[in-house]
């Protein structure tokens, strides 16, 4: 698996100073990639991410991950994700629990 930094054409030094920020809105939510910050290390990245990504939005937890540590697939390999045959049997859309999980946020209750 190639490293994301290589795919983006970034040098190791640049990638080590670019941090992906993941925000968790409530304890029941997953951490979601909301953007990036430049910082010399993870401690500073967390501190800066707090103001960039939580000054308007709710947050209970933040993660930062340097780009140099992220492995990624390449867009050239997008065929990897294509389905050749009908796999709708996997969707399970008629299960009530499934509907609850996939319902768009904000329309709960």
């Amino acid at each position, binding site marked *: 698996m190639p490293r994301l930094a290589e795919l983006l054409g970034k040098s190791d030094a640049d990638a080590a100073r670019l941090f992906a920020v993941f925000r968790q809105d409530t304890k029941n939510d997953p951490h979601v990639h909301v953007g990036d910050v430049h910082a010399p290390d993870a401690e*500073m990245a967390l*501190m*800066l991410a*707090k*103001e*960039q990504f939580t000054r308007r939005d709710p947050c209970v937890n933040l993660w930062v991950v340097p780009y140099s540590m992220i492995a990624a697939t390449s867009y050239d390999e997008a065929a990897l994700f294509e389905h050749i045959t009908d796999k709708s049997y996997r969707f399970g859309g008629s299960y009530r629990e499934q509907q609850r999980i996939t319902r768009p946020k904000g329309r709960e209750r």
Partner: protein
Amino acid sequence: MSGLGTQPALQRRELRDVLAAYLVGVADDELIIGHRHSEWTGFAPDIESDVALSSIAQEEIGHARLFYERACDLTGGDPDRLAFGRASGEFRNAVLTERPNGDWGYSIVRLVLYDRADQVRLDALAAGELRPLADLASTVRREEKYHLMYGEQWLRRLTSATEVSRGRMQQALDRAWPDAVGLFESVPGQEELRAAAIVAVGPREQRAQWRQVVVPMLESIGLTLPTENSGDRAGGRAGWHSDDLRTLLDEMTSVWRSDPQATW
């Protein structure tokens, strides 16, 4: 309305006036340093720090409003007029807060010295017996925590990065340190607030508490403290200010002065 004006502990007119003057001093500190921080908007070393310091500026100015409102609860008046309608000589902020930013290093050193002092001051209010003020101080304190994290991270990094950056941080400290004593200057009659247990810790003790945190922190990152009492400057709480405050106020109040009756 915080109900401060109707507190039984504040029936005495003199005590109310002293408390109001004290709160105006706190608010003036917050407003003026908030304005100085805001001058970095668009000019900070990187966009992340720019956004963060701009947020800090907004928060300090927000705290100023809260304290002006409490002062007005006690003596009447309008918070906006207090903020925008006074001449430089009527301001009670410590001179440290009005100094021009100069370089980023100075702004960071000042932020750290100021916010550590603010923390001690808020602790003293939060431990006081006047519930509405103690609650307010605890609330404000929560937001101040981030300001310190931000300032101390920058301070540590700039001091340890290169010889040049370390030298500039030392110069910044040399400039800021003599003014810092003014953060603990009292308003006239302030000892009454200690006696009435409204402010749980007196100014001399607050300064000692501040030194206990700030001195080891500065020394641990390799900065040298300027010698004591060499040109210590105070007087801000008595209305003595530099010309820089007048320039700042001219700019900060220009919109308000264009129509003081306007409602926003």
